[in-house]
């Protein structure tokens, strides 16, 4: 349960030091990608085409931001994480193809991603869902945007410079540990206890 400040680009060594429960504040570069962007980037790679930025140097942020153009510059207004499990179909291939070292999202991901995190050397971190204004406050600059015309504002790949972005809680580490697997078991046990209480609370039938 450490509090750690990190700077991109992240090395495999950096992320292997992180354990489930640690809190990270990240500075450096992020790129946003949701379902369509994952699909698009993997397709480009398969066709042998170039990705216009280097995902290996940045953290991947599951996010569809609210943006505005002010004096010809893009400004991020609000940018919290989106539900990560939607990207489960793409993520293991995405990690091994692009060498991303850190994912930022919400709600956690599945078995396949957990295996890929261990295999490729990456971590999944959780950012408070909906905290879009808090996130926007630590986004210092929009460096660039790709696939905007084709995919629209929420799905485009926004390249962002951030300072002390967080709190990011490590919920899936590079050692094969998942916070979600542990709590799932606990909660199913709680469910059983609650069901017993519901039965007990029932008024007797006439």
């Amino acid at each position, binding site marked *: *349960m450490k509090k750690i400040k990190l700077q991109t680009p992240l090395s495999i060594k950096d992320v292997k030091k992180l354990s489930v*429960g640690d*809190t990270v504040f990240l500075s450096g570069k992020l790129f946003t990608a949701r379902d369509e962007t994952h699909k698009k980037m993997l397709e480009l790679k398969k066709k042998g085409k170039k990705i216009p930025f280097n995902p290996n140097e940045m953290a991947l942020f599951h*996010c*569809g*931001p*609210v*943006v*505005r153009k002010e004096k010809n510059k893009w400004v991020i*207004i*609000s*940018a*919290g994480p*989106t*539900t990560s*499990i939607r990207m489960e179909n793409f993520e293991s291939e995405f990690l091994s193809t692009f060498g991303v070292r850190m994912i930022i999202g*919400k*709600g*956690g991901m599945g078995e396949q991603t957990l295996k890929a995190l261990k295999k490729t050397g990456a971590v999944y971190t*959780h950012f*408070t*869902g*909906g*905290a*879009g*204004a*808090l*996130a*926007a*406050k630590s986004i210092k600059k929009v460096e660039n945007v790709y696939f905007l015309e084709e995919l*629209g*504002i*929420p799905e485009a790949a926004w390249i962002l410079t951030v300072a002390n972005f967080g*709190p990011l*809680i490590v*919920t899936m580490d590079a050692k094969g540990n998942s*916070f*979600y697997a542990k*709590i*799932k078991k*606990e*909660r*199913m046990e*709680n*469910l059983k*206890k*609650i*069901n017993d*209480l*519901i*039965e007990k*609370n*029932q008024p007797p039938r006439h």
Partner: protein
Amino acid sequence: MLKNANNKIKSPSILEKLIDFPGNRITLNIEIEMIKITKKNIEKKLLEAIKKAETELPKDVVKALKKAASTEKGLAKIQLEAILENVRIASKESIPMCQDTGIMTFHIEAGTEFKYLVDLKKMLSNAIKKATEEIPLRPNAVDPFTGENSGNNLGRNIPHITWELTSGKECTIHIMPKGGGSENMSALKMLNPGKGLLESKKFIVEHIIKAGGKPCPPTIVGIGIGGGSDICLALAKKALLRKIGERHSEKHVAKMEEELLELINKSGVGPMGIGGKTTVLDVHIEYAHRHPASFPLGLVLQCWADRRKTIKFTKNGSIKVI
């Protein structure tokens, strides 16, 4: 009489008398104020209400979140503190508190004599279009067939309005921007009537535990019981219009709300699914009589960003944003 006129106009007849009062500047001002209540002015107020809904979390929700933060520890506390800090920044800087500015949901109680009844839908659409550019909002209306985003939060059957007609000249519009993450966790269950209420409770608890962090807890639970498949879900959504802590007017329904609140918070899901005592902030139930063979249960969750705003058009022509 004039002092009264300065603050509030009780009825149009008083206004007419005041305008007749010769050479009085105050009465002239009032006249201008009254003329201002036009379509354009209503749209302005609608835009203001949408902006407030997106940027300021209702006081009852903030209070509940603060109370939760004071009882939680560790990672759960970190989540709630991040939420509260986020709410503070959003309100101070007038920016949307969540990047998912939602799909606009309207519940309107309209008097049949309300002057702008026919124009209201168009006015709401205009206000949404403006709000999308000015606040700004994220364009969240996508054609399900082509995948094309309309870019202005308008589209086929969007915005959707639930109408409730009343008599008279008054009109109340409830605005509720609804995020996708929590909406994806909605559920409909057609239960066996023999054990309807018992099975309802079990289904609700299990559903919320399985949803985990996905609907952005601590959530507010809207439950609709009875009616039919469509009615119970509409009632569940309507239940979300209530404030936190506001119980159903019938005691036995209120009791079930309290029972579910206590039971769900024993689940350990916690803020953002990270573990803790606060999984839901409240449970609201609405019901309708059911078919003897059916026991429909509708469940709709609202994320912690429980954005709500109400606009009231009173019978004497004033507009209030509450």
